[in-house]
């Protein structure tokens, strides 16, 4: 409950609208009660009905109440519900800001379906209870004492007895709240399972179809959906009990009125008009009460949801921005790793252990090694996507964790290995990288630089063509080159290239290596690759072992001189090539 109060504080940002809206509630209720009293009195004076003036007055008054009621009702809903939506906007904005700032380790361990459901259905559950829910509750809390109080003045015993069934209702709700809570949580989880399954399926649809798994996926989905159905049915049964209790106590109230009111009427101590008031006010009290029952039913779920939202809001960001500020122009780009070790949160063995390597400003460092050696990890540590467990990483002599992100990430151009693109236009994906508004000429120059000019010209709408989610409508090599263009767009001091030419053909590779070399002129470059030809020209090459240790560091020629992974791999790559070269010569000679 306290947690909901904390969320309610967000509503106070709109206190004027909220207060006005809340004020409308009692006014609307009073008008409503007024009508009942009017009709009751009219009944008692029915014999005077020949008096048309009186009748007109009653009807006019009733009309005025009715209009008042309606106007108040409108403002009540309009003001309060809009405020609740505004709070929703605020919350979602804050959650989104939080999400984009959380480190990758968080995103690694959380399921995106779950995160999305926190931002959507959990926020909605909280909004419902605090916005419209509050409105209904307040409505009930206002009309209840007014009506009962008024009825008290007519017949105290009857009014008192009337409240008894309501206690029955409260008790039942209390008894059932545990069960309701459990079942709503189960329902919530099964919904989240459905969305998780759907998302995985749609994301991997090519694989699903390629393996003809559509039917089995549909069966599995149906199973998940059936679990949800069964949970919903159980929850519905629990709701059935509470509903029966609510309506039962309502009917029981009528029975009390019939008994006590009837007895009093028989005794002639209660005029028929008053009996009418009892009946009609009960009906009017009843609907808000049902609403309260509805809110009480939602409360357990809202509390659970609020907890999930708050958990996300309070998620600590262990990768805090440093305070040391360097102007971006002053960053030279010398990087140094000193005895850096790192183990992934979910990893069993260290991905990097005791790595020490220096890259002077303007130098190129090649990173090679077997699959899973830790090349990407090393690259990710530079931008502090993950934080090294031990050891230090320096940029121009400053420790990276002391640096403001602006100096650190602001000077880095990054080409991820999975070549992620946004589902925006081709051009916007490149502009994404630039800190300034790029001119069309600059964009065109970059497109040319990554050897995509001809291909982009062939796209249906040129560079305004939308690329699908993650760039699915581009070929693998096109995606990679677009990522390179995006990285170059920010004119970085440090260029991080994570296996960025793996999906590019030899001719384009050749072209790109040349282009990157000239682009890398004066920049610090770290390039991870499997094809040694990509790193061959680097000033220094770092060879990582399978377990993430440094096997050797040196230039291409130095590395060839000693025994080890580099020479073996080089020879292997050479052997296949020279073999075919020999064939080439032979065939060429024969021709």
């Amino acid at each position, binding site marked *: 409950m306290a947690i909901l109060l904390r969320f309610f504080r967000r509503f106070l940002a709109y206190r004027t609208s909220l207060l006005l809206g809340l004020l409308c509630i009692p006014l609307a209720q009073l008008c409503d009660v007024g009508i009942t009293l009017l009709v009751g009195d009219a009944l008692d004076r*029915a014999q005077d*009905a020949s008096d048309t003036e009186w009748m007109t007055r009653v009807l006019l008054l009733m009309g005025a109440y*009715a*209009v008042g009621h*309606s106007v108040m009702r409108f403002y009540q809903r309009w003001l309060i519900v*809009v405020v609740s939506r*505004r709070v929703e*906007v605020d919350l979602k904005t804050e959650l989104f*800001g939080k999400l984009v700032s959380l480190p990758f380790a968080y995103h*690694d361990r959380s399921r995106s379906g779950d995160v*999305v459901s926190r931002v959507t259905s959990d926020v909605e559950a909280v909004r419902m209870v605090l916005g419209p829910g509050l409105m209904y509750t307040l409505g009930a809390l206002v009309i209840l004492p007014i009506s009962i109080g008024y009825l008290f003045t007519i017949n105290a015993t009857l009014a008192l007895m009337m409240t008894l069934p309501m206690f029955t209702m409260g008790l039942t709700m209390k008894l059932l709240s545990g069960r309701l809570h459990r079942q709503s949580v189960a329902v919530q989880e099964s919904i989240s399972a459905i*969305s998780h399954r759907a*998302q*995985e399926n*749609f994301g991997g649809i*090519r*694989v*699903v179809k390629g*393996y*003809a*798994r559509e039917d089995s996926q549909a069966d599995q989905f149906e199973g998940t959906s059936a679990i949800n159905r069964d949970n*919903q049915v159980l929850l*519905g*049964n629990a709701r*059935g009990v509470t509903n*029966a*209790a609510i*309506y*039962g106590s309502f*009917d029981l109230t*009528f029975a009390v009125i019939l008994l006590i009111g*009837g007895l009093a009427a*028989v005794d002639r101590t209660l005029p028929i008009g008053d*009996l009418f008031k009892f*009946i009609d006010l009960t009906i009017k009290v009843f609907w808000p009460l049902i609403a309260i029952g509805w809110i009480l039913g939602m409360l357990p779920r809202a509390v659970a949801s609020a907890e999930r939202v708050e958990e996300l809001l309070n998620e600590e960001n262990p990768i805090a921005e440093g305070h040391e500020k360097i102007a971006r122009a002053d960053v030279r780009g010398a990087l140094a790793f000193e005895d850096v070790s790192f183990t992934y949160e979910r990893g*069993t063995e260290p991905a990097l252990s005791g790595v020490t390597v220096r890259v002077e400003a303007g130098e190129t460092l090649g990173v090679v090694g077997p*699959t899973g050696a830790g*090349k*990407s990890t090393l690259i990710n540590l530079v931008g502090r996507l993950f934080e090294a467990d031990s050891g230090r990483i320096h940029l121009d002599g400053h420790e990276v964790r002391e640096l403001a992100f602006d100096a650190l*990430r602001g000077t880095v151009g*990054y080409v991820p290995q999975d070549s*992620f693109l946004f*589902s925006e236009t081709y051009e916007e994906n490149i502009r*994404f990288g630039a800190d300034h508004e790029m001119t069309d000429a600059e964009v065109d120059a970059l497109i040319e630089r990554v050897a995509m000019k001809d291909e982009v010209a062939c796209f249906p709408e040129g560079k305004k063509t939308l690329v*699908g*989610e993650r760039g699915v409508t581009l*070929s*693998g*090599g096109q995606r990679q080159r677009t990522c390179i263009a995006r990285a170059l767009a920010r004119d970085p001091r440090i260029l991080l290239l994570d296996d960025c030419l*793996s*999906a*590019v053909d*030899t*001719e384009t590779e050749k072209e790109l290596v040349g282009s990157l070399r000239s682009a890398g002129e004066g920049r610090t470059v770290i390039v991870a690759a499997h094809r040694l030809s990509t790193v*061959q020209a680097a000033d220094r090459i770092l060879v990582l072992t399978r377990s993430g240790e440094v096997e050797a560091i040196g230039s291409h020629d130095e590395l060839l001189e000693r025994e080890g992974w580099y020479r073996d791999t080089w020879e292997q790559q050479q052997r*296949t*090539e020279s073999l075919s070269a020999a064939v*080439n010569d032979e*065939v060429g000679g024969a*021709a």
Partner: protein
Amino acid sequence: MSEAKSEKEPGGALEIDRSELVATKVWDTSLFKRLLTYARPHRRLFLKSFAVLSLLFIGELLGTRIWKGAIDGPVAGAADAEDKAPFVQALLWWVGAYVALIAAMTVLRYFQTATLNKTGQAVVHDLRAAVFRHLQSLDLGFFDRRPTGALVTRVTTDIESLSEMFTSGIIALLFDSVKVLVVLGMLFAIDVDLALITMLTTPILIGISLAFRGGARRAHREVRARLARLNGYLQEVLGGIRVVQVFRREERVAARFNEALARYFEANRRTIFLFALFYPVMSLAVYLIQGAALWAGIGSIVGKGLTYGEFVQFWLLLNMLVRPIRELGERYNVLQSAFASAERIFQVLDTAPTVVPPATPAAVRTAPGQAPHIAFEDVCFSYVADTPVLRGISFEIPPGKTVAVVGATGAGKSTLVNLLLRYYDASSGRVAVDDVDLRELETSAFRARFGLVLQEDFLFAGSVEENLVMDRSEVSAASLAEAIDAAQARDLVNGLEGGLAAEVAERGATFSTGERQLLAIARALAAEPDVVVLDEATAAVDSATEHRIERATSRLLAGRSALVIAHRLSTIRGADEILVMARGEIRERGTHDELLAAEGLYAKLHALQYAAASA
């Protein structure tokens, strides 16, 4: 023109698919009818619901009758009597009857909620499964154009909004019409004038709801579409969080998100306004009815000897009549929102796949276990009209042979794979399997014979074993072990905590790219496929491992066909035929040696690679 437009709207990603907003020319009634077809299999549940509702209704009517009886009987009778005892006695009988009635109704009320809910959930579950199943049958062109997050909303929030309608709306609504008629009849029985006057006001109510309907639906439709977009964007940003953070674009994506959020809020505001207005207008109309009833009622009491009991019964009945109308305000909102969702759902169900399964599917002629003969015959293809990607491609993969494809990026190599697996259909020409057009084969049976490694492969959240087996009964423990060995993934799997049972994160995020490829290769080999398709399968794998994989797979795949796409020429030298592609055409073909001899494109590529390696 179109350029100017897209420049003005940089939020291309935020744009909702306008087609989602267009009314699908479906009137409520036909939408309603269509929804009811999903109810048909659950007829019994529906009948049960109606039975419960009818009993409850009768109970409510009886309740008003008891009030009339009690007021006109003992209460009125006692007026002039000296000895009140018999009247008290009579009143107690009435109260007794009332309490008995209440007890019965309370039980019925439980069944009302439980049964209605059960019915609704049953229907909704069917619908959800149907939508998902239908989505599975759609072609990749459909998925290419839609963000995953937005598609997910179709089977989640859209369906949930329907569920609300089924549980709290549609049955009750159907029943309400019956109710209104009966109650009206009873009103007439009590007092014709009173009833007539009441009835005259009903057209007002109907008019109001009709007036609101169009606006409300439009507004809800927009809310649904905006919400789907918002969630889609959130999902997308979560997927690219590394890029966002390293590029320091947190603020930019947040600005985008907020823009989408603002549009969603605006759409919401419209529904709130309509809803806020609808309710008071309805209740004003209700007061009008009540005022008319009061006026006429008092007239009748005085003029025509209407009893007080009858008036109270009339008032209670009126409440029964008015309650559904009042509630309609709430229900209407649910209903309009549900209808908007129903439209979106039916839109998906009405999307016909462009890759159509044949009416009478043929089986692949070659028996499983043997490689079929595959041929591309003068195939042309374009993803988007007027931008041809493949032009007149012809080649064959004879049984047991390996065909390799090389060529510039964007030449259309992966597109060949897309066509071979019938992800898309060729615009002209045909892909033939044992001389039967692919379009006449049973697609899933055909695909099941493939072992596939895509350029962008995908690991599912779940266990490693689930990812490798993929629910295929053909995969035995032995073939799985063999595949893992051949893919050089043994060390990887053994190194995982729990081995094969180890958990895989979404998209395999906790593996390195190369490791993901090893697992994808193992998955492709596990079912002992007849044809293997490898699209840049080892692009992120080191040479030594790659070499070992090649040796192991060629042993494993003896006698099977293969289509191999690679940029590293070393990986395809052993192929029986090599196709060199450029700009959607096959420029050269032959074996490695023949191609080198031809001194064409291939020889040039080769020289380049060689030069790069020794430069």
